[in-house]
């Protein structure tokens, strides 16, 4: 044990194989099935079972090795299906690896979901005990922390109401409160648990950050690279079940964004005109690649192109669209500016200043034309995505805005009310207060 205690988690060549069932090929019909079942029931059953579950092997994880020191905060990123969840399940011992081994030093707790084992018929109070026990807390521990848990959840008055009568928000609050009071040395968290309204999400992420500050080891699995960058020092990038990169979070994230951008633009080429868009990157005002912005931030769109043939007077059009349609655009057709020509590889950048967008998901669209070409060279289409994050309450917005008014618009230009009593109120979407300690940049 002595030489290994340096590491909180040590993974050696871990692999996990799944067998994926396949559809049965062809059925010979009911009559045949009955006939063969009657003739030789045993072999028929066996054949049927094999057919039903004709399996194909699939390695969800292969040859993954990593050492995680005590007190390290590690972010695990990767696309859907890259093996993040499988790694998480293997580490939390829910499922066992097919090959390899791993060593865990210290009390470990994993949160793949909040409210596991919550029973709808039981009251909040009863569920706190049940859920705590499922997560590995002792009864004495739960009793000791009970008041704290209830306070954190902010649902004291509904404690003796069956959970099935809770709103989904209350449910998640209570569930997370229990989870937040686990006291492990190693915490494995799936970011999907940071659900609920944005203020609650902040609370969750702040809690995770506080674990980190307390010197605990945290493994944080995220689909959101920006969250990894702010919370973690180290990043592990999984790709197709393999450990693709392991290193400083900043660098890994940078490369990860690059990778995504390149993949997204793979189809954006026009062989006739010899132009291909290699990638479109989004950066914040500090030049970091980013997919998460706050209202009032600058949005930098960087288009990397490769022109095999010279294109005279190209026309670029960029646009940002939300769920309800286009928000704003920078279109050379409209403003009249354009490069004289494109030749070889190069970059075109457009900075949208102090973008006044409400917290929502957006996409960036790109189209390319040329002065003397009739048809488009690259059709106007989505090339990148970003999210505007933040809590409207921090911009002085109150009330029902969250749910209704938010969907009526995306852009909020600064405005000023002059009320009947003569007073004026100015509203703008520029960020004043930090959104979350440990989470803001």
């Amino acid at each position, binding site marked *: *044990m002595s030489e*290994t*205690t340096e590491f909180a988690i040590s993974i050696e060549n871990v692999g996990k194989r*799944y067998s994926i069932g396949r559809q049965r090929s062809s059925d010979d019909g009911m009559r045949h099935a009955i006939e063969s079942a009657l003739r030789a029931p045993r072999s028929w059953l066996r054949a049927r079972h094999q057919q039903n579950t004709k399996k194909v092997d699939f390695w969800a994880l292969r040859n993954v090795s990593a050492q995680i020191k*005590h007190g390290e905060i590690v972010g695990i990123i990767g696309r859907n299906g890259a093996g993040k969840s499988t790694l998480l*399940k*293997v580490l*939390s*011992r*829910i*499922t*066992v*690896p*097919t*090959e*390899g*081994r*791993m*060593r*865990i*030093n*210290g*009390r*470990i707790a*994993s949160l*793949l*979901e909040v409210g*596991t*084992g919550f*029973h709808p*018929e*039981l009251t909040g109070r*009863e569920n706190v*005990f*049940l859920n705590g*026990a*499922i*997560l*590995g807390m*002792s*009864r004495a*521990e739960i009793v000791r922390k009970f008041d704290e848990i209830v306070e954190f959840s902010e649902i004291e008055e509904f404690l003796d109401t*069956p959970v099935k009568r809770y709103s989904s928000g209350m449910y998640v609050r209570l569930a997370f409160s229990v989870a937040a009071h686990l*006291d492990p*040395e190693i915490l494995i968290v799936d970011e999907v648990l940071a659900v609920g309204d944005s203020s609650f999400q902040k609370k969750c992420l702040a809690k995770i950050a506080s674990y980190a500050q307390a010197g605990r080891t945290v493994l944080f699995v995220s689909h959101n690279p920006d969250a990894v960058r702010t919370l973690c020092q180290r990043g592990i990038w999984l790709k197709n079940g393999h450990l693709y990169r392991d290193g400083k979070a900043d660098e890994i994230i940078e490369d990860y964004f690059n990778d995504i951008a390149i993949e997204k633009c793979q189809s954006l080429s026009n062989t006739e005109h010899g132009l291909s868009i290699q990638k479109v990157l989004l950066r914040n005002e500090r030049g970091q690649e980013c997919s998460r912005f706050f209202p009032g931030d600058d949005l930098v769109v960087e288009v990397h192109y490769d022109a095999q043939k010279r294109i005279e007077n190209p026309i670029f059009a960029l646009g940002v669209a939300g769920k309800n349609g286009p928000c704003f655009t920078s279109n050379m057709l409209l403003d009249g500016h354009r490069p004289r020509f494109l030749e070889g590889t190069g970059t075109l950048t457009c900075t949208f200043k102090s973008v006044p967008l409400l917290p929502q998901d957006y996409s960036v669209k790109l189209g390319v034309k040329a002065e003397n070409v009739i048809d488009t060279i690259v059709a106007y289409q989505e090339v990148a995505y970003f999210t505007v994050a933040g809590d409207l309450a921090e911009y002085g917005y109150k009330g029902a805005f969250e749910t209704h008014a938010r969907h009526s618009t995306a852009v909020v230009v600064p405005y000023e009310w002059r009320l009947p009593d003569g007073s004026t109120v100015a509203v703008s979407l520029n960020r004043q207060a930090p959104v979350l300690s440990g989470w803001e940049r």
Partner: protein
Amino acid sequence: MAQIIGQSTRQFFIGSLEKPHMTEVLVEADRIERQYWRDLWRFRELFFFLVWRDLLVRYKQTVVGVSWSLIRPFLTMVVLTVVFGKLGKMPADGLPYPLLVFCGMLPWQFFSTAITESGNSLVSNANMISKVYFPRLVITVSSVMTSFVDFLISAIFLVALMMWYRFIPPIQVLCLPFLVMLAVGASLGVGLWIAALMVEYRDFRFIVPFIVQFGLYLSPVGFQSSVVPPRFRLLYSLNPMVGIIDGFRWSLLGGRAPIYRQGLVISVIEVASLIVSGIWYFRRTERTFADVI
């Protein structure tokens, strides 16, 4: 197929009182798991929480609540008494027929609810299995225990029934704890098998109700096994519940006939092998539960 070897588990029990980094868990493919039984001990409280949950949940939003665990056996007793005692005119050896029936029903109802509940236990807790680690044995054993609580409630009814008939149990009643253990063992053994099989083969969802339905008539619940012709008696005793139910009746009511020893021995052997093989199969398949369920 991974395993956990060597670990100083004290840390787990005493929690953060001890200095950290005492615990080491090694998970490895294809090794024997020594850690498992320690983990089972560590999660012993969860075991009681699950029993507590099932009991709490069962009678929520019912009007008469716990009384259901008295009403159900009472009505069954009435029906069986009428069918076998009055219409079938089965011999009662001078004992009140309802008492005879109830002594058979007590272990049978425990067994049938226990295998039904524990059989479904893993599938109905699938969410927990795929999201949190703990020894899965906890789930299945706790559902047998939940049924056992019902058994105890029904037993109170039996005491009341005996008082009503002013019946004093014979000295053999001292053997009852052993027979109760045997009934628990039978339920656990069969329950473990069904629970583990159910994870992959949901066919058992249909098979179990059949076992329960036919078992009621194939086991000596509504009648005594003495009505079975002697040459078939041994064959009949292959049903492990026969020995157990006969034993219950013998220890609670006495009766003229001595206990059928062969039947009881067969039951004991069967129960022991069911438990051992049940745990073996459960443990063997357990590591893939989260993947298959």
